[in-house]
């Protein structure tokens, strides 16, 4: 999948471009990092990928590109980078999820923490049982992306995204016994 930007808005002044990039960074940095972590990247890898993506976006905006669909573009870039890194490291999406369940912050009673950890464990197991596209659709949806944006990121039809999300949610509900 190509990362080329089909963005067409006219260029504006450099200061506006910088503020656009800053706004996007503040708005999307955490969702991008979380998405990458859920895909299985280490925290350091995720930071590197997000930083590279924003650097590229900044250069694009400086060159006069638009930011209309920068949100889905950023997710698409980091998604492809995550896949490249996982292929390079010969890792699978499901591998690191188990390790990260222990990073749940201590913000409740011990009983609440145990229950929460168990819930997350069940969720992880259910996520691992999904197909790659189902998992990716769900994770992107969890970061607030609309179906149209998910279709941009994953290169799927919007109707396919809707069907995939619906199927994945049903599977999760069944596996987690909610």
């Amino acid at each position, binding site marked *: 999948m190509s990362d080329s930007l089909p963005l067409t808005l006219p260029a504006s002044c450099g200061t506006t471009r910088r503020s656009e990039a800053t706004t996007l960074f503040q708005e999307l940095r955490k969702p991008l990092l979380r*998405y990458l972590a*859920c895909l299985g990247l280490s925290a*350091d890898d995720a930071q590197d990928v997000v930083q590279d993506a924003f650097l590229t976006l900044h250069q694009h905006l400086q060159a006069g590109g638009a930011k209309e669909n920068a949100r889905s573009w950023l997710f698409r870039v980091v998604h492809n980078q995550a896949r490249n890194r996982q292929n390079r490291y010969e890792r699978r999406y499901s591998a690191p999820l188990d390790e990260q369940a222990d990073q749940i912050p201590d913000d409740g009673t011990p009983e609440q923490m145990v229950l929460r950890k168990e819930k*997350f464990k069940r*969720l992880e197991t259910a996520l691992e049982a999904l197909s790659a596209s189902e998992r990716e659709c769900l994770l992107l949806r969890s970061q607030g992306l609309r*179906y149209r944006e998910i279709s941009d990121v994953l290169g799927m039809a919007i109707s396919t995204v*809707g069907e995939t999300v*619906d199927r994945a949610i*049903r599977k999760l509900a069944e596996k987690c016994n*909610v």
Partner: protein
Amino acid sequence: MCEHSTKLVAWLDGELPADDASNLGQHLNNCRECAERVSVYRQISDDLKDYCGHVMPVESKSRPHWGVPAAAGALAAGLLIMLLIPRTPPTTIAVPPASATPAPEVAFEKAAPKMTRKVVRRHPAKPVQRHDALRQFSEPEFQITIPAEALFPPGAVPEGVRFVADVSIGADGTAQTLQLRPY
């Protein structure tokens, strides 16, 4: 299974066209099965968002902050260099033995200018303090202990080997002694 069940997730996500969403909303008031499914899907979606929010600390904990260790390492490296570089003893100028024949006297009086200007100091100059005097007191002022992890880059110290460096700093700021000891 209700015929509307395939649209519930899309309705929950606000992805249905306005008319369809309105119709489904009315349907949910009458269909208990769909209402329960929507509740389950909403719950699982919230759990997933909660999970994604906590799956990774946003600020990397695995990436160490090198500020303090780097400063400590730089300090330790500087002290080690100061200790390891051998101090060259003060060069002594060999004084030639006194010659039997006295050196010819130079007539300084003749060479000096005749017109001398007398400089009157309104304030007598203070005696110059010799910094060398501090060097006479080389008793250690304080001692610092630097762990091996701060002296060497990560991975340089083999696992299982743990030691610290005790460095005594003199009053003049120079390192007096360096002692490695296990702990």
